[in-house]
């Protein structure tokens, strides 16, 4: 719950800033021109999403949020924000992805370390421009004063919360799209109503930043609140949806595999049970099926989650170490399966 606490503190801080703005000359507002223009701003501060970058203090119109079940990225802490231009709001679309007005932005900062030791690694932004979404990665400098556009991505040596020394990969602009893509267009992945808390959705409606709380909001399990006695299936399916399904779905980057790991997929063969590999190569690891019920060690899906070897490891992008917690949940799911 550490993260939730931090978010709450952040939200309070944001509120404080908003109050402060009323009586003194406040910081510059978010640059709608930078979001809507055609270029790629060279610095994160060009957008003015934050009043204080290092502290990740959001500007007016920038709303922090969290996901019930988050995408795992080498254990990095993630600070997530949605920016809505003045006079606009989000529109709910059932339990699915919220609809964003043109001019909106989604900002996600990856950080490692706690408290005063926290270091910002990178900030990824998704900009909703008139002709569609654009994804850009920004890399924080050593002094933590600025994040600069890293079109070609990069690598950072760091130690994960699990204590592993890794070469952390910042994705290049195209790699952003390889996850954020459906039918060839860039789209957001995270902010689906089912993966946002009912509380947050309600608060957004009260602020006028969302049209309504949709049915099916907040239905994905809260990952950090799981207990060993919880049923494995919802946790595992939520985990696979959030960590894998952006590629493994029709129209996604891995559509040719035929594997569809979306939460709503009800056909067991489609989500891997007794499904043979297609183009897995050595990723198959001498196993015959994506998921062999009762036999986690003979299931390709778990084998690939549990590897860091390029060509075997899944997801292909976004991690250099193994998510042992995620692996444990999926292992339990397969083991309990009849």
């Amino acid at each position, binding site marked *: 719950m550490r993260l939730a606490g931090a978010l709450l503190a952040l939200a309070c801080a944001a509120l404080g800033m908003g109050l402060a703005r009323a009586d003194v000359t406040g910081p510059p507002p978010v640059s709608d021109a930078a979001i809507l*223009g*055609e*270029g*790629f*701003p*060279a610095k994160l501060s060009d957008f003015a999403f934050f009043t204080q970058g290092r502290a990740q203090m959001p500007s007016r119109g920038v709303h922090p949020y969290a996901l019930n079940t988050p995408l795992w990225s080498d254990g990095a802490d993630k600070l997530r924000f949605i920016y809505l231009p003045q006079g606009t709001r989000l529109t709910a679309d059932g339990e699915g992805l919220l609809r964003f007005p043109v001019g909106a932005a989604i900002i996600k900062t990856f950080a490692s370390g706690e408290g005063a030791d926290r270091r910002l690694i990178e900030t990824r932004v998704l900009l909703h421009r008139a002709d569609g979404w654009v994804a850009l990665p920004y890399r924080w400098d050593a002094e933590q004063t600025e994040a*600069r*556009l890293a*079109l*070609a*991505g*990069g*690598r950072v040596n760091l130690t994960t919360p699990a204590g592993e020394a890794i*070469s952390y*990969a910042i994705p*290049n*602009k*195209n*790699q952003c*799209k*390889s996850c954020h*893509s459906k039918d*060839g267009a860039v789209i957001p992945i995270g902010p689906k109503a089912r993966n946002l808390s009912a509380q947050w959705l309600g608060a957004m409606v009260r602020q006028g930043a969302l049209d309504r709380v949709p049915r099916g909001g907040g239905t994905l399990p809260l990952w950090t609140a799981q207990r060993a006695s919880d049923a494995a299936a919802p946790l595992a399916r939520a985990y696979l949806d959030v960590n894998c399904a952006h590629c493994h779905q*029709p129209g996604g*980057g891995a*559509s*040719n595999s*035929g594997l569809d790991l979306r939460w709503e997929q009800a056909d067991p*063969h489609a989500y891997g049970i007794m*499904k*043979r*590999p*297609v*183009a*897995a*190569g*050595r*990723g*198959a*690891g*001498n*196993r*015959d*099926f994506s998921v062999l019920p009762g036999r986690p060690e003979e299931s*390709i899906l778990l084998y690939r989650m549990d590897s860091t*070897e*390029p*060509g075997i490891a899944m997801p*292909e*992008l976004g991690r*250099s170490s193994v998510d042992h917690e995620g692996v444990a949940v999926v292992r339990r799911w397969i083991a309990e399966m009849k």
Partner: protein
Amino acid sequence: MNRLALAAALLGTAAAPLAAETHRVEAAQGAAALQEALILAKPGDVIEMGEGRFTLTDGLSLDVDGVTLRGMGMDRTVLDFTGQQGAGEGLLVTSDNVTLRDFAVENPRGDGIKSKGADMIVYSGIRVEWTGGPKETNGAYGIYPVESTGVLVVNSRVSGASDAGIYVGQSRDITVRENIVTFNVAGIEIENSRNALVTSNIANRNTGGLLVFDLPGLPVMGGGNVILRDNVVKDNDTPNFAPKGNIVASVRRGTGVLVMANDGVLIEANAFENNPTAHVMVVAYTQPFDDARYNPHARNVIVGRNAFGRGGDDPQIDGKEMLLAAFGGALPPVLWDGLSESPDTALKIVPGVTGWSLGLSRVGQSLAEARPGPLTLTPTELYTFPAVGAPAALEARLK
């Protein structure tokens, strides 16, 4: 930020599209410069890679339509992925009308070059090679276009792929011509694809030379209309080194051509030599499946006139000694499982083609129940087959 990125940031506000340009990247500038050039390219641009070795730790990707990525030759410009730390392939292309030519990809940890949903793509003069020879730890596919319409792979070489050297999957309107594939599990594989011409290639020292598969449970099925013509399929005797679980792990060492399922495959004017299991094998899909859309039979497969040299003399088949004795020391060139969906669509051969049949009576039947015997089909001179291959516009791009 380098000069290119700066230029793009400045030019990004220009309203009119720029005229196509050539951007040159030298090996000494490194991987980041190359990746930035690929990102900042405008439709129609040429990215030219200088001579030498580019050392890469991550996969490259191209997502701009109409770009040509060109090196100085398949032995002179090398993208070296030996130290690759991330990504599932060396180079990923996700845009249309792309031309890749005259460079090499060495030792990618996963696939070599993958193009997905990339219509009208040309691979010309490309080399993908795992330099340590055939190993199970090599990547799966060398040249890997998938879910695309309009594919031309020409004058390229792939060696060491632990699945297929050149693999075209779930695509249509395809030409694979004048390539050399060696020491792969499958030399060239056409899978779940339609309208493919595989011609004038050399498939040598693979486990299996040319494979035409149609598999169940995929978004695109119904493979067929494939012509294998004027290829040299020789000495495909490398033991299978594919990781188990993959369909090609079941390919027998010494297979020349393998057709599994599919509707319409013509095999003519090829030269076969020293493929010790079988020069040509035509079979139904053998594994259990649960997909109502799928037809496991090989239909409308025609074995026309081919030059069949020595072969079938060391088959990787149970009961080999008995079979060899029965057939006088070598199995005849065509191996059929004996299965047909209907007499109309059963395997056709021209006069002079000999073979043997497993004599199976239903799809999925165990080989233990095989009743081997000589092929007893009535040969026919008469067959027609549609013209197939990549659109002429792709060939025109080579000029």
